[in-house]
């Protein structure tokens, strides 16, 4: 049975099955949109936390690190409560739409990227702080310098965020509803198809997910190797 399902899964991928690629496309679209928003929020946040001094900084960092371990279903539940008809943002009618899934993924991966960026930037700040002080560069002006000079390390954080977003199931199933042709993504489709005993599509999506995970990891390693070769890491 497993062999049959596997060969059917391979033929689904090879034949360019329309349903499969619709799900794949939506997954990538939702995750990349969430990633783009998270990068814009998380990288400056992680940098600012590393280079600035303010009261309560330790509390913010502790909260950020704690949010990394937040169960995705809890995030899904919180977004559901916000977006449901009786919730504060219910009027927007976003529940069970790809936008709701993007919101959930942003909340999920922003702390991860920000926390990893913070650790990278803290190390760089130890190195650069006196130089910037000596050259009298304002904190605001140093942010793009930190971001650029740490770019090879930050790519790792960004790709880790993408990997987390694209493989997430708990939150997106709550706020997306796994609606066919609307909010069905790879992870939720795998869960549904497995429950139905339709293993071929589930396996095909699983193969693609594993392939994506391998690609992301290969990309991380290549970028780091490139940075080291150029002595920029």
């Amino acid at each position, binding site marked *: 049975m497993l062999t049959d399902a596997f060969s059917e899964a391979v033929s689904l991928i090879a034949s360019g099955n329309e349903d499969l690629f619709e799900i794949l496309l939506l997954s990538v679209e939702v995750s990349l949109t969430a990633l783009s928003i998270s990068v814009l929020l998380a990288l400056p946040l992680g940098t600012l936390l590393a280079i600035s001094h303010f009261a309560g900084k330790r509390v913010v960092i502790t909260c950020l690190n704690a949010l990394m371990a937040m169960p995705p279903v809890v995030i899904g539940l919180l977004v559901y409560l916000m977006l449901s008809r009786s919730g504060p943002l219910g009027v927007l009618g976003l529940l069970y739409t790809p936008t709701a899934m993007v919101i959930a993924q942003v909340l999920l991966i922003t702390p991860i990227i920000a926390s990893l960026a913070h650790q990278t930037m803290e190390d760089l700040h130890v190195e650069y702080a006196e130089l910037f002080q*000596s050259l009298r560069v304002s904190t605001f002006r140093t942010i793009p310098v930190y971001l650029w*000079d740490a770019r090879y390390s930050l790519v790792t954080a960004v790709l880790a965020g993408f990997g987390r977003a694209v493989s997430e199931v708990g939150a997106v199933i709550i706020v997306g509803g796994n609606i066919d042709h609307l909010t069905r993504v790879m992870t939720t489709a795998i869960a549904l198809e497995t429950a139905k005993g339709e293993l071929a599509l589930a396996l095909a999506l699983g193969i693609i997910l594993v392939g994506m995970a391998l690609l992301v990891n290969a990309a991380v390693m290549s970028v780091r190797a490139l940075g080291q070769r150029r002595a920029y890491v």
Partner: protein
Amino acid sequence: MFNPQPLASNLNEPILSVSGLYLNLGGQTLLSGLNLNCYEAGVTLVMGANGAGKSLLLRSLHGLLPVEGDIRFAGRALPETLPDQAMVFQKPTLLRRTVRQNMEFAASVDGSEAQIDTLLEEVHLKEKADQPARRLSGGEQQRLALARALLTRPKILLLDEPTASLDPGSVMIIERLILEASSAGVKVIFVSHDIGQAKRLAADVVFLHQGAITEHSTAQHFFSKPSSREAQAYLAGELLI
């Protein structure tokens, strides 16, 4: 190449004046009530045994440490003079960029892009302008750090052992640039352990021992007749604890 504006000092006013300078960190007094009036232009050498407080004094003069007391350059209090200062650290900090990009960054902050090529040529790094700065040797990195400091056209140049552990070629290039800057009117304050170098460069010497200045005299006087017991011991190669 060097075209600094004068520090606007009159003859009766010290170029560098430090009074009641204290540095307390972690419950320890690291600099204890330093007083110093430096009238001489040229290179002031700061000497002393390891842990005497030389680097701390230099960092204090550059506004990097939370000191108590008064620091003035040509009568102007410290925060006001910071735009006129540049510092080269013992361990050069270079951006994770190419040699040229490191210079361009300094120029974008406070300098002149037009001088980049000239200065890179002066420190013999023009050929390596497009190489990653962190791939340079120790001596090359220090020369780049000095070129970057000079690019900001400082009137006061603070150097924290910039030639420690460097090869003679790099030392010669750095010393030549320091003397050129000094001749052009830049006030140079230089920390060094190298007595030969001190004799070659210094107009006056400040000697520190355990966070206090025990002697400040002209270089000629310091090396021929040091007046403090600590300076005599230091020059005699004795261990100062």
